[in-house]
């Protein structure tokens, strides 16, 4: 039961990380501006650099968490009921915050981040002129969304460090690739003659569904975390 709950928590965390909209939104703008300034081949190359930047960011968060938790583990018992219960409380709060605040009230896909940060991302996406710029934007685009993803990374890292039967490295690699799957989907869409308008209209249509389903997934993770916490205490 605990192994089953642990695996489901990690899989659902991956699903939420892949479903959040800030990085795909920034990526679709970035690709659009790249197409406006260069050939489609160069735009495609730069977009893959953006994806690499995002993967580097996710890897960085994982490495940071694993190192921190490895240091903390001898001092504080991280695989304990209080840690799971506190984390599940935070995840429940995130579910409510997502439902209420994640998408701004607009006809498009504007998000909770301040308009200044959104404008900065938009400007950087527009001005990017090299692969290193693309990697940098890909890396930093995920930063404002850490508020919604950090507890998920945390609980997945705690589970992986303390469940030897779940293979750590393959799961982390799969997590990193899964988190960037939407970007590959957008990349393929642009290659198939879709444009920013059709992609944004699709994302706008998907908005009500995401607004409902993600809080449900957050709540499920929180409940499973409570079950894990209680079963540890038992």
């Amino acid at each position: 039961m605990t192994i089953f709950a642990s695996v489901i928590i990690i899989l659902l965390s991956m699903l939420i990380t892949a479903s959040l909209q800030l990085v795909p939104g920034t990526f679709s703008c970035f690709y659009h501006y790249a197409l406006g300034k260069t050939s489609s081949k160069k735009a495609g190359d730069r977009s893959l650099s953006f994806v690499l930047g995002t993967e580097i960011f996710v890897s960085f968060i994982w490495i940071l968490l694993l190192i921190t938790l490895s240091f903390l583990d001898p001092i504080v018992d991280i695989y304990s009921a209080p840690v799971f219960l506190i984390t599940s409380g935070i995840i429940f709060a995130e579910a409510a915050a997502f439902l209420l605040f994640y998408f701004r009230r607009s006809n498009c896909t504007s998000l909770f981040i301040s308009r200044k940060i959104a404008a900065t991302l938009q400007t950087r996406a527009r001005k990017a002129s090299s692969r290193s710029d693309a990697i940098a934007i890909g890396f930093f685009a995920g930063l404002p969304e850490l508020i919604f993803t950090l507890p998920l990374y945390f609980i997945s890292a705690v589970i992986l460090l303390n469940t030897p039967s779940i293979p750590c490295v393959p799961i982390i690699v799969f997590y990193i690739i899964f988190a960037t799957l939407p970007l590959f989907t957008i990349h393929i869409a642009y290659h198939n003659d879709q444009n920013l308008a059709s992609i944004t209209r699709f994302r706008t249509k998907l908005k009500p569904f995401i607004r409902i389903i993600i809080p449900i997934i957050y709540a499920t993770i929180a409940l499973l975390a409570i079950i894990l916490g209680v079963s540890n205490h038992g």
Partner: protein
Amino acid sequence: MDDKTLKSLRSDLKLHARALSIPSGAADDFINETIKSVQKSLNKKSTITSADLTRLVVKNLKKYNADFAYVYENRDTII
């Protein structure tokens, strides 16, 4: 509309048109007609907000290409 704003608007529209794979000749026609119509509408006004300018541009772009108008209208609300 001053020259700086006009130049910036024209380059912005050209960038979006190119990104949307609108043929350059057609794009130039759309942009020129749009800017002409916008300037005509602005003839009697001394000041205008950027939101009003966007609305005028979008209203005219919609006659030529729906995707072009959509992208220009929502360029600040995608992220």
